[in-house]
């Protein structure tokens, strides 16, 4: 398989509506985590934290009039996609059939879905809005973006816990290798939803002021994967090379967060081997660390093992932006973008150790 280039990167996050603002906010130590107001919680239960996008405008990428008809996930990924294409200097026009879009998600459609459920259950079945229904499907954000940007190549939405943006990268690599497209937007999008938040809270999975746990986040991240030939023809300077990816999954119950440092280390080692990179060459790691104590501890032990007690610079942005597949995609975008800003950056590892034993890692290299 080819090792495609990354020529553009973008992020819409709870700390900023573009990658530069997000990067600066993260570097300054800012956190988007805030307590979710307790309405709807059983009396006595402590409210948990989430990283929500509280102020967001779709302009200038998307007019407010058009955005009003779209769900939040579609707005996030559309804005990120336009920014990503702009950063890559890539114009879809004239390349419609050679451009694809692969989006991961965990929660796209949650808002329209819960609203439609409310309408049907508490108003009447006849009250169900025909305008909401199409946005309840997980592929709405990717497809709405494809429709508006005129993307006619492969268009696929994937779901597989936190590592799903890495699935998108892998699928993009296979599709580009098979010459099904020349360039593919690959990333993920998620929207925060109170009903789902309350369910995680009731299951005591999310962190509170006194109880450790992860915090849900939202946003979108995407990169533009491109073949070497396309990069050469366009005469652009790539940000990074997507050099390696591997999974080391465990067959466990879907919601179980299983701490297994051996399999985590195996995923890291296999991704590095796929990229032909020695651990000593890795300059930074985007950790999967998200506040779930036993998972974070297992990842630390896996890192100790792979890097022989001398781990590279580690970044745990889920502590600032929450967790969800979109945050992993934001990590990928930040990693790709870092080669432009940090001359010492050589190789970046991205860890994604999700529930259900879904473990995967990716490696980006300076081109």
């Amino acid at each position, binding site marked *: 398989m080819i090792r495609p280039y990354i020529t553009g990167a973008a992020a819409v996050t709870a700390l900023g509506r573009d990658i530069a603002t997000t990067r600066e906010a993260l570097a300054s130590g800012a956190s988007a985590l805030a307590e979710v107001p307790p309405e*709807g*919680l*059983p009396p006595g239960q402590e409210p948990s934290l989430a990283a929500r996008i509280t102020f967001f405008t779709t302009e200038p990428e998307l007019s407010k009039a058009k955005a009003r008809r779209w769900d939040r996930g579609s707005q996030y990924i559309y804005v990120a996609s336009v920014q990503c294409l702009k950063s890559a200097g890539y114009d879809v026009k004239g390349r*419609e*059939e050679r451009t694809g879009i692969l989006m991961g998600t965990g929660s796209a459609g949650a808002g329209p*879905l*819960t609203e439609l*459920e409310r309408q*049907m*259950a508490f108003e*009447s*079945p006849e009250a*169900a*809005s*025909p305008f909401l*229904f*199409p*946005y*309840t*499907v*997980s*592929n*709405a954000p*990717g*497809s*709405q973006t*494809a*429709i508006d940007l*005129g*993307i*006619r*190549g*492969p*268009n*696929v*939405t*994937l*779901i597989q*816990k936190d590592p*799903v943006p890495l*699935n998108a990268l892998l*699928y993009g690599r296979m599709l580009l*290798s*098979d010459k*099904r497209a020349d360039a593919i937007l690959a990333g993920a999008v998620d929207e925060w939803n109170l*009903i789902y938040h*309350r*369910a*995680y*809270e*009731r299951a005591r999975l999310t962190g509170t002021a006194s109880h450790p746990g992860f915090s849900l986040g939202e946003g979108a991240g995407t990169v533009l994967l491109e073949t070497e030939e396309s990069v050469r023809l366009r005469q652009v300077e790539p940000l990074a090379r997507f050099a390696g990816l591997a*999974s080391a*999954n465990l*067959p*466990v*119950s*879907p*919601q179980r967060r299983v701490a297994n440092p051996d399999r985590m280390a195996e995923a890291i080692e296999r991704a590095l081997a796929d990229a032909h990179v020695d651990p000593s060459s890795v300059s930074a790691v985007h950790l999967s660390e998200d506040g779930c104590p036993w998972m974070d501890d297992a990842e630390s032990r896996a890192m100790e093992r792979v890097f022989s007690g001398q781990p590279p610079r580690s970044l745990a942005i889920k502590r600032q932006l929450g967790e969800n597949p979109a945050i992993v995609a934001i990590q990928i975008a930040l990693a790709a973008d870092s080669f432009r800003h940090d001359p010492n950056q050589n190789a970046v590892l991205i860890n994604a150790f999700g529930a*259900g034993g*879904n473990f995967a890692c990716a490696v980006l290299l300076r081109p």
Partner: protein
Amino acid sequence: MDHRSVVVTGLGAVSSLGQSLKETWDGLTAGRSGIAPITIFDASRFRTNLAAEVKQMPSGFPPALTRRLSRSDLLGLAAAREALADSGLLLEREDPSRVGVVLGGGVSGLLDSENYFITLNSKGPRSARPSRVLNHPPDQTTDRIAEHWGLHGPRATIATACSSSATSLGYASDLIRHGLADIVVTGGADSLARLTHGGFNALRAVDPEPCRPFDRRRKGLTIGEAAGILIFEAEDRARARGARIYARFLGYGVTSDAHHMTQPEPTGEAGARTLRACLASAGLAPEDVDYVNAHGTATQQNDPSETAALKRALGDRARQIPVSSIKSMIGHCLCSAGAIEAVATVMTIVTGIVPPTIHYEEPDPDCDLDYVPNQAREMKVRAALSNSFAFGGNSTVVAFGGVS
């Protein structure tokens, strides 16, 4: 290309026609309808209360497991159990890291989370069990299958609405072709839910009567539920272990219409692009194709658009070959439609029997192909296509071929 060839070595199916591949296939070739009034939720206030519901849920799994499964999970596990047994694979002898699971899904555990929403709103948060809503995501079924059979290999769940499980076949085949897996359990499972039934009712896209694909009087689709699982295997390995090979997965096309969130592109050019991409990937010429398992939803817009797409992509060949919609019997199984229809396409090649389009009585001048009206037909099928077109313009066409 130096990529490995991918073959089908096991099949499993659960549908409104029966709990097994045999029952489903016998029903399809007999032209039997699985469409009946919905029993799993109150549908009396909708435009139609008809659907193709699985009447008797599969059994034989430990009760402790079954309790935790959504309806989709149970359908998917049952079809996977049948397909794995059918394949003759001895999983304990396989390297589990080389066995993957790639499924399509979408509605998945929604019925459970609907019950959570209703309880939450009517009785308050203490009465609503959060496990019911956490059971909703479509990757649950993928993880459940990996868990139940101890599979460590690559996993992915495709969620592109009605083309989900057709696309999953493409992704699965790519994993094998690129050497990332030797065996992949692929296909999909999806179940009925109040929201999807209500949503299509709200769009007025459902027929109050059982659906009539390609018929002039068609008024829309009938929702269904099903699971279809195929065992994909690298051909060299399958032959080495002496496996029975049903068919070869020849290739697929995956494209974006870039037209509209709910409407198909009316000229058929978008669908034709997907068909051409599939033919190119499969190395087929139009004259090599002997049968098309149509998307055939029976909506006013889909059927003429799909007919036009077939004529654009296959030229004169489109008028020479049978094109049938099994949705007339098992309904539109949404995210599992591509999988159950792929299973039927493989069986068509293996048995030489083309399943019919039932309830077809009045031809539509805009739908002027041979839709195999009401009765199955015997004929040799060398290669066949299965079309899947989805909300959002996510289109996928897969191709299977016979093996000597």
